[in-house]
């Protein structure tokens, strides 16, 4: 990975929250680097701070200590070169598919015509053509997540963040969407260069990622990084696959 440039770094980051009971330390001493053209997965038990970390990478949360830097510059707020996809899709039920995607473009200086054109382009990319006027309630989980992807891609970020994107989907749809997101990531015509995905399924992480960051809680910290140098497409039944799954599993337990 070293021939690629560093795109994002998390330096000495810690984050605590004030609760009624006192001070809760969610993350401590996180030091991570992310590079161009890599697919990174973050795994760990629930409550270990993965989502908090993702929000800090996004710029939505300010770290209590340390800082996040994007291409060398420290983040002062929301990082507009990142976009995020959510487990529960995060769509607005009163907007159509097209309107949901256009909403993400609102704060970018685009005219209505430009915004619509961009939205249409990414609708096409994720296969939502024909669904533009549909409302979220008419869509299955898989379709809703496609809307989530299109919305995230439409702002043409360099980094795509995903918080358990496939956890609310049935197994077959999840299989299908994993393939498609890998295709999108590998597409040279799209600006997306780095993907950071949170998952609680180790197999999913090993199937998709170049590198798996293993975290644990109390307080949230990085245990180890495991590189997965296997060629894609990866075979879940192969010995090597099993080996990595086992290695990561042991790190967590």
């Amino acid at each position, binding site marked *: 990975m070293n021939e690629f440039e560093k795109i994002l770094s998390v330096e000495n980051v810690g984050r605590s929250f004030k609760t009624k009971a006192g001070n809760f330390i969610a993350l401590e001493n996180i030091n991570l680097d992310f590079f161009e053209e890599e697919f990174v997965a973050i795994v760990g038990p629930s409550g270990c701070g993965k989502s908090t970390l993702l929000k800090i990478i996004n710029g939505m949360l300010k770290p209590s200590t340390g800082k996040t830097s994007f291409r060398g510059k420290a983040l002062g707020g929301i990082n507009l070169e990142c976009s995020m996809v959510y487990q529960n899709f995060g769509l607005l039920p009163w907007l159509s598919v097209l309107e949901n995607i256009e909403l993400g473009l609102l704060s970018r200086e685009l005219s209505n015509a430009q915004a619509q054109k961009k939205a249409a382009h990414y609708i096409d990319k994720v*296969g939502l053509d024909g669904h533009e006027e549909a*409302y979220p309630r008419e869509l299955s989980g898989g379709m809703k997540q496609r809307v989530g992807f299109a919305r995230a891609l439409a702002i043409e970020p360099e980094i795509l963040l995903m918080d358990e994107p496939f956890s609310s989907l049935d197994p077959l*749809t999840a299989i299908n969407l994993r393939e498609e997101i890998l295709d999108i990531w590998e597409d040279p015509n799209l600006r997306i260069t780095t993907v950071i995905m949170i998952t609680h399924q180790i197999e999913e992480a090993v199937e998709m990622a170049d590198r798996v960051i293993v975290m644990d809680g109390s307080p949230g910290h990085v245990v180890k990084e495991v590189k997965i140098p296997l060629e894609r497409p990866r075979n879940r039944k192969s010995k090597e696959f099993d080996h990595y799954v086992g290695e990561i599993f042991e790190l967590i337990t």
Partner: protein
Amino acid sequence: MDHDSSSNKEIQSLPAAGISETLGLLEVIDDHGGEEKSYSLASELNIETDSLLTTIKAAEMFGFIDTPGRDVILTPIGKQMIETEMNTKKQLLLEQLRKIELFAKVKEALESQEEERLSRDDLLKMIQSWLPNEKAEDQFETLINWGRWGEFLGYSQDDDYVYLDQG
């Protein structure tokens, strides 16, 4: 699977499966080298047999798989579906959709209308008459879902009409 042999112009009802699910099924069969037993798929994927059978029925209706006995085998079109990029997938899907009787009947019904549109209620009534043993609302949902995917049909909930998607 089985065709009702009582009449020769029998319309098949649509199984309640989504396109993403169906594509996922094709991927899985491909991973197994293009062929597998349906019951071992169910246990491997940890899916209810019921729900898997619905997806299998859908894939078969599209001609993406064959189901001799308990096997599921990927057809050449099915193989093509998972290997091509998105727009070709949609084209293939559209071609296969045209072959499904219910869609042909809906197309006919729409074309016979002045503006080539039908309100949801009107279409539901027609569907119920063609498929008296099925719940029309469920058929409608799958019909629109697949129709939108193939860019064959469109449905505007706000204006309440179904129409033929000309591209």
